[in-house]
């Protein structure tokens, strides 16, 4: 069995398997640019198809081909252009985490179409940024090269792929592959059936590569490669007794399935093979994904600003699928040159329009708004009015729903802050998270602010217009480093407030303490934010105040 612990070897094996069976869809390579990634990319020559590079802004014209406007204008004859998707090829998508949902949807359709494309998505995302879920789901393999040092690059062998390809359909199978994969998929909490399907294909490809009948070892490798990143839970084994209710359930399932049929491959073996590759933070990531509904950006993408909104004067520009020509302005630009151009090309009839005449329409559009609620769930606030704050947020949520705003929820209590809900429009989920929000502990105001600022900056990068709405009673008593130090805590909070202001984040400070709090007033000042004391308000009034402050 090849050594699968090294991500580079895993990636190399994945590439070989893709070369044997392009039906595996592709490989998502999560890595920053560098020698390690390059070493893997150098292996792409082994894929039998021509390479095409894509970038997140790739237009429809480039993908599907169409009229070559520049050439057509230049020659006066219709010139068509081939698209990148018109023949089977290896599509290398750089900066996959920036790919807009529209591009992801098109690539997903191309992969579904069965034309034989292979997708290699280079995901350079940091933290939660990641390649569109629609693409990750359709690529069999996912390798994270993080933490591999360039000095550890292994020497890779080059097995004969042509022979392996020829063997692919003839390799005998000695295990009940389908049932095995279905059960394993369930144990790892893999909802989508694409996971098990890919595992089956991968197992066949591994067997063909190694020129052996398909047996335990091949299944093990295939499962390890295709399941590790899809797992949303780990099956418990007997020796691990961290009793979380969810995981206990899954263990029972394991036992049940073990009892039902004597399989040829012990489940434990396969589980171990996968478990070895499941990175420690994977489940955290899965949790984050589940929290945010696995949507990369979806509805909150940047408005391109050439289709809707307030019209701006037309500008010279290039034709492309995303642009709309301002016909009148184009004609106006071309008109003065007509006599001259007729002289130089007397045999052409009609208007003579050259590429520099093209004028494009532009519109100014406001991007979607995101309201980040930073809620103080500390003991003091809980005593005072956590319930009221929750009520107010619920009312605001209904309004946000009507205005199609996005909302996100950050709670701080005890020693740290936590992003309970990444930006979403799903009201039901927000409501559920809010209802589950417990109260108690210290007030780490600075940590809460920091989490909200991070959230706001991430949202800005995605083209949303964030507003931070802080609900607190303002008695900060836990500093950034987690120690209970009232003095340090307020200094930290003010510091964070300044940071928010420096980053140009719109904010709003709601004082929900029993009496107006002086320190909160200075915090609001530091943030350049309106300060709203709400002594003894009901939920309705909190919401009205926020609406009024947001309206401008």
């Amino acid at each position, binding site marked *: 069995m090849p050594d699968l612990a090294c991500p580079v070897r895993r990636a190399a094996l994945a590439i070989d398997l893709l070369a044997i069976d392009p039906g595996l869809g592709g490989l998502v390579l999560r890595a920053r640019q560098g020698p390690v990634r390059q070493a893997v990319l150098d292996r792409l020559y082994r894929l039998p198809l021509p390479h095409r590079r894509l970038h997140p802004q790739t237009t429809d014209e480039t993908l599907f081909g169409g009229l070559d406007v520049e050439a057509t204008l230049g020659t*006066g004859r219709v010139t068509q252009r081939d698209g990148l998707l018109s023949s089977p090829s290896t599509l290398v998508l750089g900066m996959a985490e920036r790919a807009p949902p529209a591009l992801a949807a098109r690539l997903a359709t191309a992969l*579904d179409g069965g034309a034989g494309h292979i997708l290699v998505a280079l995901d350079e995302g940091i933290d939660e940024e990641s390649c569109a879920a629609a693409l990750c789901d359709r690529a069999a393999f996912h390798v994270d090269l993080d933490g591999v040092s360039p000095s550890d690059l292994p020497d890779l062998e080059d097995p004969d792929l042509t022979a392996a390809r020829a063997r692919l359909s003839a390799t005998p199978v000695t295990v009940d592959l389908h049932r095995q994969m279905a059960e394993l998929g369930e144990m790892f909490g893999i909802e989508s059936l694409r996971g098990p399907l890919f595992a089956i294909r991968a197992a066949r490809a591994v067997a063909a590569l190694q020129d052996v009948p398909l047996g335990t070892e091949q299944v093990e490798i295939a499962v390890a490669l295709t399941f590790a990143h899809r797992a949303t839970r780990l099956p418990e084994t007997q020796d691990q007794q961290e009793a979380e209710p969810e995981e206990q359930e899954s263990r029972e399932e394991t036992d049940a399935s073990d009892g039902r049929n004597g399989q040829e491959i012990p489940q434990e073996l396969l589980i171990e093979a996968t478990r070895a590759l499941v990175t420690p933070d994977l489940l955290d990531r899965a949790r984050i994904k589940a929290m945010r509904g696995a949507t990369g950006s979806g509805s909150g993408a940047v408005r391109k600003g050439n289709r809707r909104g307030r019209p701006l004067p037309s500008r010279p520009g290039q034709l492309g699928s995303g642009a709309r020509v301002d016909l009148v302005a184009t004609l106006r630009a071309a008109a003065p040159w007509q006599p001259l151009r007729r002289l130089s090309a007397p045999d052409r009839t009609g208007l003579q329009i050259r590429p520099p005449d093209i004028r494009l329409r532009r519109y100014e559009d406001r991007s979607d708004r995101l309201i980040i609620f930073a809620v103080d769930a500390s003991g003091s606030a809980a005593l005072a009015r956590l319930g009221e704050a929750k009520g107010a947020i619920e009312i605001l949520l209904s309004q946000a729903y009507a205005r199609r705003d996005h909302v996100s929820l950050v709670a701080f209590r005890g020693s740290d802050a936590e992003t309970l809900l990444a930006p979403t429009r799903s009201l039901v989920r927000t409501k559920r998270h809010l209802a589950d929000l417990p109260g108690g502990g210290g007030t780490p105001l600075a940590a809460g602010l920091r989490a909200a600022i991070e959230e706001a900056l991430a949202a800005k990068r995605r083209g949303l217009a964030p507003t931070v709405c802080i609900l607190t009673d303002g008695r900060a008593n836990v500093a950034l480093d987690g120690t209970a130090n009232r003095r340090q805590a307020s200094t930290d909070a003010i510091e964070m407030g300044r940071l928010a202001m420096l980053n140009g984040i719109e904010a709003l400070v709601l004082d929900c303490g029993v009496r107006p709090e002086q320190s909160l007033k200075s915090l609001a000042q530091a943030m350049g934010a309106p300060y709203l004391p709400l002594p003894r308000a009901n939920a309705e009034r909190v919401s009205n105040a926020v609406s009024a402050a947001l309206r401008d």
Partner: protein
Amino acid sequence: MKTPFPFSAIVGQDEMKLALILTAIDPALGGVLVFGDRGTGKSTAVRALAALLPPIRQVKGCPVNSARAEEVPDWAGLETAEVVEAQTPVVDLPLGVTEDRVTGALDIERALTRGEKAFQPGLLARANRGYLYIDEVNLLEDHIVDLLLDVAASGENVVEREGLSVRHPARFVLVGSGNPEEGELRPQLLDRFGLSVEVASPGDVETRVEVLKRRDAYDRDHTAFMLRWQAEDAAIRDRILKGRVQLAELETPAETLSDVATLCLALGADGLRGELTLLRAARAYAAWRDDTALTRKHVRDVAAMALRHRLRRDPLDEAGSGARVSRTVEEVLA
């Protein structure tokens, strides 16, 4: 390009399959909305539908698939009046599509090279008399949604832009699919879909094994697999054709009308569209089952898919509306 996965070979997901078949029997039902998780066979089912649908007769080369030569729009510039058999169009509307592509726009190619003002038809023209499929419908940009609503309501696409003035019929069955976790759909568009179904990954191992087996067979031995299911697809197609004939002859008894009205009243479904769709769906269902009379059972069976998306929704209500419909059906039509 491979032939799509056969419709009859899709394991389970009976409600979704039934909803799609009902729209094939009665296209006036107004479309299907399929909501569910990734990898549950949503797009597979819709793409399979294209191969399943009975062919239509249309004028050769007509951009709006007209049935008769006199219906071909002037701007198409067709000279032939030959009528040929063609597949029912199933048109994909991709996310991020521009308005021009949907409605059609000035044919830039002809404008630039020949100096002619001509209309280049868009996706709505191609979808006429067929299906328009929107994957991830809940992520579609709002202005495209508005446009689709407008056309779906009027059955006609009117283009007044860049000096063009063109109108052509655009009657299509709207099929949308999406994942509700990624965003919600505006109620106006929701209401526009005749039927709504919710799909989930099959829960038990046996079904999942069967899905894997069939998909694997489809991938590995494509020709044999398609042959194996061809007959079953053809059987469904025949039933659809028979159902269409049956539908025209089906009488609607007065009791059914009152059943439908009572049910919608009890549920507080908005507008009359709910009643009309429920009645149509029940009729199509009876025709599909080859039953000669419309009974209460038919109404009961299709109530959930015809009504669950029409209830006045409290956005903070967590219980699914499907459950509410079945509860009310139990009470009212006991």
